[in-house]
Every structure is written in C-alpha cells, then in structure tokens.
C-alpha cells in the first residue's frame, strides 16, 4: 500500500438497471488476489416472481464508513484514496457488527473463517492502475470503471450520484450510482 500506481481520476459507476444477472462479476471477483479467491460481490434477484430485476452490489466505499466506526477491533481502515479495506485478519474478531451496520448490506461474515470479508475495489489491481475485475468482465456495463468524461460521453442522459438517504441518515460514497439526469441523490427510505 506504500507505493502505488492508483489512478485518482478513475471512478466506479454502477447502473443496476443494466444488470442482466449473468453473474460474470461473481466469477471474476473470486479471481481477485486480495479476497483469497472468495467472491465478494452480491448479485441477487429482487421479487423474482414479479420482476427480472437483479441487484449488483459492490462496496460503495463510504466517505465516513459506518463499518469501520462500528468495528470493535479497529480492523477496518480507509486509505488515502478513499478505499475502505477489508478486515485486517489479525484483528477481526468475527462479530458481524460491520455486516449488520453497513447501510448497503455489503460486508460478508465468512463463518468458516470466523471473519468478515468485503470488496476492496480489487486493490491489487487498482493500486497497479488497472480496473477492478468485476468492471472488466461486466458485459452490459452495469459496472463501469473509468473517468467522469468517459461516463458522461457514454451516458448523456444520466447523472452519477454518490449521495444516499436512509431515513435520517445521509451517506456519501466514493462509488457512484447512475441516476436520471439532474438527480442529486437516491432516497432509499
């Protein structure tokens, strides 16, 4: 983490409506060296009986990460690039505080290891100037990693949003979600 080729102009953009549920990202995620070959991305069907809607969820890398704040073992840290890293495995006590407190439902408790694991934006790749595995393989570009200029050229009728409302709580993130043009936030509740 000391010397990196992390490209600060590159950003992550997610558009759930483009997700076709192919799960290529799940397979690719398991190739990430920092995950110990466990897939960290979540692809779920939502109300399968009435809709083909799927959700694709990477870690949103919150500006003020709740997961890190509620960790009783100081195992989760955010770096200078804003990447919120997976639990330090020497410290994580497997309490699941982060799993239950994350407003996006991202961290996973790996029961067999008695520890939490989560997406760290493929830090082995992004720190070397490459794209995260999931964004590399996504066939519909529901997951896109690139510059603001690229995304605005590709999606002229959308606006990247990184502000989310959960009741009384406003959460801002490093990862963006693509919303109708002119949107400023996504109100979940």
């Amino acid at each position, binding site marked *: 983490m000391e010397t990196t080729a992390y490209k600060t102009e590159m950003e992550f953009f997610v558009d759930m409506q483009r997700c076709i549920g192919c799960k290529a990202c799940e397979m690719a995620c398991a190739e990430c060296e920092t995950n110990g070959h466990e897939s960290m991305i979540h692809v779920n069907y939502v109300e399968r009986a009435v809709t083909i809607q799927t959700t694709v969820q990477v870690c949103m890398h919150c500006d003020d990460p709740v997961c890190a704040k509620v960790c009783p073992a100081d195992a989760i840290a955010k770096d200078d690039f804003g990447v919120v890293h997976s639990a330090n495995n020497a410290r994580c006590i497997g309490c699941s505080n982060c799993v239950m407190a994350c407003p996006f439902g991202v961290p996973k408790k790996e029961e067999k290891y*008695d520890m939490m694991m989560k997406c760290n934006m493929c830090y082995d790749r992004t720190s070397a100037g490459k794209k995260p595995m999931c964004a590399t393989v996504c066939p519909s570009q529901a997951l896109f990693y690139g510059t603001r200029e690229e995304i605005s050229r590709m999606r002229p*009728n959308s606006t990247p949003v990184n502000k989310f409302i959960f009741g009384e709580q406003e959460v801002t993130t490093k990862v963006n979600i693509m919303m109708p043009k002119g949107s400023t936030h996504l109100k979940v509740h």
Partner: protein
Amino acid sequence: MQHSLNKKAAVIALIATVICVVVSFYGSRKLQNFDPALIAYLFGTLFALFGGIYRYCVWLQRPPTWMYFKRTWQLAFTGKIFAHIYSLIADAVKNLLFQSFIYPRSKKRWIAHFMLASGCLAAFAITIPLTLGWINFTLDPASALDPGTTKLYAANFFGFKVMNFKLGSVMAFLIFHALTWCSWFVIAGAVVFLVRRLTNAGLIATQTFEGDLLPLILLIIISVTGLGLNFSYAFMKGIAYDFMSVTHAIAVILFLVWIPFGKFFHIIQRPAQIGAHIYRREGEKKGMAVCPYTGDKFTTQMHVDDLKTVTKQLGFDFTLEDGTSHLDYSPEGKRSLLAKAHLKARQEGGNLFG
C-alpha cells in the same frame, strides 16, 4: 490527526505498572533474586505493560468495543455461570491456544501460526517472570559441597522452591534450552509467513513494511540472535557473544516497546473473539431479528438493538419516518431496497437506461 493523553487510561496503566514493580520488588525478595544483567529488559517489559494497558483502556472506551466488553461480562455472569465458565475455557483453548479458526483459512497458515504463537507465548511465560525476578534458579547447597554427588538445581517462584532437578539430566537440558525450542518454533513460523508475504500478490498489494513485514523480521532477528547466544558459548568459545547479546537486547526491547502500538497488539486483542462468540450464543437464546423485507431471521435482536445504540453514539442515525430503523433490515433486504429505490427513480425519470 491530533492525539491527546487519555487520562483515565494513563492512570489505570500507571497503577498496574506500580503494582507490577511492587510485586517484583518483593517477589524477587527485595531484588535479591533479580538479575542485574536483565535491567534493560526490565524497563522494556515495564514500558510494554504500561503501553499495553494504556492502549487496551483507550480501545475499550470506543463505543462498539465497550458494548461488547460490557455485554460479554453481563452474559457470562447471568444464568448458568459454571456452564459459561466451561464454554469460555473451552473456547479459549480452541481459539487462543490452538488458534483453530485459522485452520479453515489454510492448513499451512495454521501450522505456521501455531508454531509462531506457541513459540512467542512460551517465551513470554519464561522470560517475563525471569526479567521481573519472579523466577530464579539456585544450586542445592548440600549437593554443591559434596564432590561425589550429582549437583541438584532448584527452580524457585517468588523465592519459594517449586522443583528440583539434577544437573546434566534430560530435564535440566530441556529447561535450560527452553528458549532454544521457542526460537526454532518462532523461526519456522515466521519464515513461512515472510515467504507468503513476499510472494502472495494480494498481500503484496495491501501490506505495509512497518505493519506486516517488520514484525516478522524482528521476530526472526530475536530468535536467531537468541540461538546465537547459545551457539556462541556452546560451540564457539564465546566468540561474538557480545555482538549477539547486544543485537538480541536491542531487538527484544524494540519488540517490547512496539507491542502496544503495532501488529503485536492483536495478541492482547484476540480474546475479544471469545466475547463475540458468547454474545452470539446467548443472543440466539433471547431471540432472533426477522428482516421486514425478506421475512428471514438474520441476526440476534440484541445485536440489532445494540447496533442502533452504538451507531447513534458514533453520530449515525438510521431512524426511518415510521420510527423503525434501516438497521432492522438484513443485508439482503438492504440491497434489495436500494435496487428497488433505484428502479423507482429510473421509472419516474421516464427511462430505465440513460
């Protein structure tokens, strides 16, 4: 980041250090059994004690840590206390002594960690009481004066004789070389981890030199120079003994001073895992939380309720308009709600794609 002294933690750490000094003064029979050659190690040990307790107390004051600490002891002393004590001991043997939670991560990592941890813990158990003068060895006066008999050696704890053993016996060999066995264990474990850290791409990307590599290098230096001391007087007629002893002392003191602040703090932190196990087990008996979206049980209700308190203490408020909380939803429920909110926003925008 600005750091200021945490007075409560400093007072507790100071009291504990003073108690240790007093116990060591009288335990070494007013320094009679204290080995002055270990004076530098003594100050290193006292600093590690002060720093370790200070950091532990600061750590405990964080809202989530305090919640787990408080709940663990509340739950351990509620209901079937003996059953709790039994499960605490069983869990400690399984997860602290044998670190069995590492085994599913990798068999090789578990073996290496077990060797590293058992070597370190045994070395602590030997060297700390020796440094503080709690343990000393004496030659039995009766056998010492009789040239025809085998010399008897006595091991004393706080000045009280604990056991006798014959010089030159197998027992004497094992006891006098106890730190040698520890060193071999530590070297074997540390080398496996060092090789892993130098070759695993994921670790290379996320590790730091001072946080991950230096602790291993330090342990190897301590163990190799420790072995070198023994090797020097046993096979080299004392050649390079001074060099070995100075290098060993510097490495050990650095290690001691670093315990409270670096990677080694996880040794002190790890018992919290047992608290998390009790919390889960006892919480299940009290009742599970059901996600309003998925309709499935996902964690204990106590966990959800405590998290609502802790997040508020930390400055987050996930309360919803109807008085419920976003934290009442399971991770899967939260992801689905986000996706549905996104779908709704897109539908209202008049175009699913853009």
